[in-house]
């Protein structure tokens, strides 16, 4: 059984079925890809998983437990972290403060719920401040730690979002186009980081339009089109898939 599963997940906006019967399995220890053309419903699927949007049908199962009725912040407390396609950083605060807020919020609710161990530290439990420093450093943000995030370029702001999401020590991390705005070197580092995180036991669901990156880091790739999963498989299977080619390039 996968850590995070969706079964028949659907949402309807007016008469439009934006996500239709989506089944996903997000396993611990690997990066799972979710790709598809514009408007295919990828971000909407994220919103349904973390409860920002209510599903009109289907179930979200986390660690064997249906969580579809929980509100967003309870789902986060179970261990679902995410980033946003359209940046949702705390623009008026510095990079360090952004991560600190995440860690502080976690510390506040950690008293009531089970929290997974730190992902990037090796074994030992670090004090809050050090954990924040560690995250800032591992995301390559040490040089800009005291810069207001509102003043950062997109790529770095995306890394801040990842660091902040990691600060709540999630068990599954939903990344929404983390590489957009990054240059090739940064994208390379991000790929390595994702693989490291996965290796330490995190489940990652990656929405990304940088297809080479997806092909490089993902163990499994799901292709979404018109709100439906039209294909799933290993990267090489997906690349060879005619249906996928048609979905991306259209027609014949």
């Amino acid at each position: 059984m996968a850590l995070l599963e969706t079964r028949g997940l659907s949402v309807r906006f007016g008469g439009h079925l934006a996500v239709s019967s989506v089944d996903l399995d997000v396993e611990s220890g690997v990066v799972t890809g979710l790709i598809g053309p514009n408007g295919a419903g990828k971000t909407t699927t994220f919103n349904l998983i973390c409860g920002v949007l209510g599903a009109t049908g289907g179930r979200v199962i986390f660690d064997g437990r249906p969580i579809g009725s929980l509100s967003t912040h309870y789902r986060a407390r179970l261990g679902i972290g995410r980033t946003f396609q359209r940046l949702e950083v705390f623009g008026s605060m510095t990079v360090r403060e952004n991560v600190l807020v995440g860690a502080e919020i976690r510390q506040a609710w950690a008293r009531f719920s089970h929290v997974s161990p730190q992902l990037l530290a090796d074994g030992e439990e670090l004090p809050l401040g050090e954990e924040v420093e560690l995250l800032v450093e591992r995301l390559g943000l040490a040089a800009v730690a005291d810069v207001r995030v509102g003043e950062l370029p997109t790529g770095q702001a995306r890394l801040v979002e990842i660091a902040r999401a990691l600060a709540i020590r999630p068990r599954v991390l939903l990344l929404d186009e983390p590489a957009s705005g990054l240059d090739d070197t940064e994208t390379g580092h991000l790929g390595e980081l994702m693989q490291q995180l996965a290796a330490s036991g995190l489940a990652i669901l990656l929405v990304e339009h940088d297809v080479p990156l997806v092909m490089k880091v993902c163990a499994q790739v799901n292709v979404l089109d018109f709100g439906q999963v039209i294909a799933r498989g290993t990267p090489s299977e997906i690349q060879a898939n005619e249906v996928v080619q048609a979905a991306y390039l259209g027609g014949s």
Partner: protein
Amino acid sequence: MDQFLQLTITGIPLAAVYAISATGLVVTYTISGIFNFAHGAIGMLAAFAYWQIHVGWGLPALPSLILVIFVIAPLFGALVERVLIRGLEGASEVVNVVVTTSLMIGLLGLANLVWPPGVNRNVVQFFSDVKGVNILGVTVAIHRLIMVAVAVLVVGLLWLLLNRTRIGVTMRAVVDDRSLLQLNGGRPARVSMFSWALGSSLAALAGILIAPTLNLQPITLTLMVVTAYAAAAVGRLRSLPLTFLGALILGLGESYLKGYIDTSDKLGSFQLDKLGSAFSPIVLLIAIIFLPQARLRSVGQQRQREHWKVPSVESAVLGAVSLVVVVVAVALLLAPTYQLLLVDALFFALVALSLVPLTGYAGQISLAQVTFAGVGGIVASMVGAQLQPLGVVVAVAVTGLFGGLAALPALRLQGIYLALATAALAMLMYELVFLQDSVMPANNRQVPPVGVGDMKVSSTLGQIVLLAVAFGLCSIGLVFLRRGRWGRRLAAMKDSPVACATLGLSLTSTKVATFAVSAGIAGLAGAVSGKTLTTDQLRFEANFPVTTFAVVGGVGVVSGALIGGSMLGVLPVMNKVFATNAVGLFKFFEIPVSKLNAVLPGLMGVSLGRNPTGLSPMLSQRFEPVRRSPVAAIGFPVAVAVAWFLAYRDVIDGWTFLALLALVLAVLPAMAVVLAGELGLQRSLVIGGIVVAGLAGAFALPWATLSDTSNAVRFCAFVGYGVLVGVAAGGVAGLLQAPEDERPPSPDMLGITSPLNRSDALEAERGLGFSEEELLVR
């Protein structure tokens, strides 16, 4: 049964007018995106204009009606849109709310100014000389039939407008998709202006229709708007049919409640007769509670027009200490009547401070802070003078709890609904609680002086110190909190609620806690005020200026609350200084100066569109050069201290002291730059000239305040000096700041005057298109 029938028949015309008014509100909101809190005030003004034209100047009813409803009101609405609303694009919800609430206060003041209260003005009902019609045994005046008929006509015409005319279709198009309309060549700004014109016409119509059945009083007519808010909220601010349903519920409900409940009816000691007037806020609250949960949306990073620095705790402590010192120093110079103004200034500053965590830090709106202060004062008074200072503690706790609980249903919502919910709460508290004899016997209640045992704060000076200390302590506390976990969390929530939720933060409980803290501070203000609270001070609309001034002062920082609150508190100084003065144009029209302060809060608020961050950050930015120049930074307090000492010893007049202070503040930044040698000789000389002129003026000013000088001289002297200082400050600001601001170019300026179409293109293709000169334009 007879009574029921009768009440039903009286309720329906009322519902009809409410429907007209609410329709205007909804049309304006859906199309321009701005909720017009001043909608009722526009209707009120129109009713007065109608009275002036018809009764005052004797024009027959019909032309007067046409003039007001089809000319004056729409022009006014369009003007408001053009001048105030268009500049609000991209401003925060807080600023949007404050601008229209300020407009409401401003219009109320204007009405009181032009049509002084106390004169009996009556608008007669239409066809009052014709006998009413008998419907099911109840005689109904023709006027009431007209109300219903007009409402039906409005619905019909509106339908025609929206479905059969281009502008109407375009209005619906704006609601559907604003940018698509632009791509069609439609101008959303014009449509928005039209919606304001239409909304104002409808407000005018409602105002004129209802005026004969109410007294022609500015406030009564203006507050009819709460009914429109309620009906619009039933329609979720967008559905017209549901809005009509809301209006019907309100008209009938009010009629039944007023009909069935006698003035003497009581439940225990609770007087029930106020339920009728409390009905609309009740419906408003219920409608808001049943609204669906606001969806969390990822809206992406938005450019924030407001930006505040977070001060350090040390500077907050320093600020608090200097506040107490300065306040005492000023108080010592003041005559007792002016000292009372200082008490008010500090009281309002403390109430404004309560908005800093809520509005400044967390970005939430409240229009009920004075109400919370009233609750605090009343609770302290109920606990009694003997149990002080326990009373203060109880008052803060109770108010905090009350604030948290009261806000709970509205906190799942955002922006405009929160503003409406707090407004409803303020109205409800006034009608149902503050008007109770058991709560405010003889319409007032004395808040006991603070003290321990027999040591009471009894003098005015003591009260001033107490309030200043309370403000200082609360400020330090707030700055401390802002710099800690809680403050980071609020700032995070303001930046991105959805991100906070996905980090595991419960938005509702965070907001409730913030609301409780905010209400608690307001409650503290009431409990330590030592005031005699009157019901009039706790009116629904008394809440608006505080929020306005807090935002104008700069609600993100505690100093902003101090500036905003004290400005509000000392406004009545004009009443005292210019008690007998008036401005006017010969004998043609004349306005007592003391009345001007009713309009000022409105003017302050509407200025916000340009500077949403508020005064305080603007000032601290202006005084930045002073901080860099040690000579100025040390010289300034020393100079002021010397001047104060001279004034204290009566060597110089109090007015001279104030004038000197104003002068110093105006030119200080420039002096700092001059002293640092950063300005050229010529500019330095100009500034020197200003200083000399200012000094001369400051010493000449006391002459103008002598009792035997004429009103005109006195007034001119003050205004003249004010202008001088203002010009100096403005000029200095101009010297120190680089110009900015750029407008989007109009294509006509670029030389494209006629549409480019296919034939143009073909022509161009043949090489005959545009001449070289044309191509070189820009």
